């Protein structure tokens, strides 16, 4: 039995994210979730993958303005998380396969988690 408290978080850079996710997908990992945290340097995005109950997390830290590559081309189900991050934080994605353009969550103020925008 794995140690429940063990949280494996591997840092990645924006340029290697796409190939890394692609490798994991080939390996049979499934996307568990993606979430964003507002930190002083910009955004910290965690992508979690699972294979046979083993969890693997990729952590990407990017400056606020940077556009990152969408992973919907690899796992389509990521559209939910990417649209959520786009609406709530204002993270910018390139080549999203399903882009709601900010209408996924309708909120009273734009990007409530990142009010400076």
């Amino acid at each position: 039995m794995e140690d429940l408290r063990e949280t494996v978080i591997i840092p990645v850079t924006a340029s290697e994210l796409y190939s890394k996710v692609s490798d994991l997908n080939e390996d049979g990992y499934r996307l568990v979730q993606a979430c964003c945290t507002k930190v002083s340097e910009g955004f910290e995005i965690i992508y979690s993958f699972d294979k046979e109950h083993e969890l693997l997390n990729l952590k990407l830290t990017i400056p606020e303005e940077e556009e990152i590559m969408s992973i919907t081309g690899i796992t389509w189900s990521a559209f939910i998380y990417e649209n959520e991050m786009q609406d709530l934080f204002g993270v910018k994605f390139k080549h999203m396969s399903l882009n709601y353009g900010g209408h996924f969550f309708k909120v009273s103020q734009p990007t409530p988690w990142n009010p400076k925008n």
Partner: protein
Amino acid sequence: MSYVTKSPWLIHYDGSSCNGCDIEVLACLTPMYDVERFGIINTGNPKHADIFLITGAINEQNKAVVKQIYEQMPEPKVVIAVGICATSGGIFKECYNIMGGTDTVIPVDVYVPGCAARPEAIIDGVVKGLGVLAKKKEAMEKGLPIDTAKGKEKEEA
């Protein structure tokens, strides 16, 4: 309740509740509590409904939906806010996307607080709402304007 000549039907909409009140509303319909003995039927069509039962607080996105359902309902009608979120916003009041209780968009006749509101309290609230409905109906028959504010009663669970 002999003064109600038509069986009151209700429509239920989940504003932004946590489902706790919604499942209690449904539990009211089932054998344990059985509001159907009062002739109350849960309908999905606003035009068939006399009572609008709303759970959960109002947010930016469902504001228009709630308003539209209210406007589609024929007069006389009664609005019952079930649960503390529908009453005032409750625990979610401070959330960025919550505007407040149901009365921020439509007039409310009966408030049923509780988190989650118990089926007994919901039934009490609905029965109280029937009284308001009868008054409104009377006013309508006499050709008086229906003053929603006057029918306001507070239900304490």
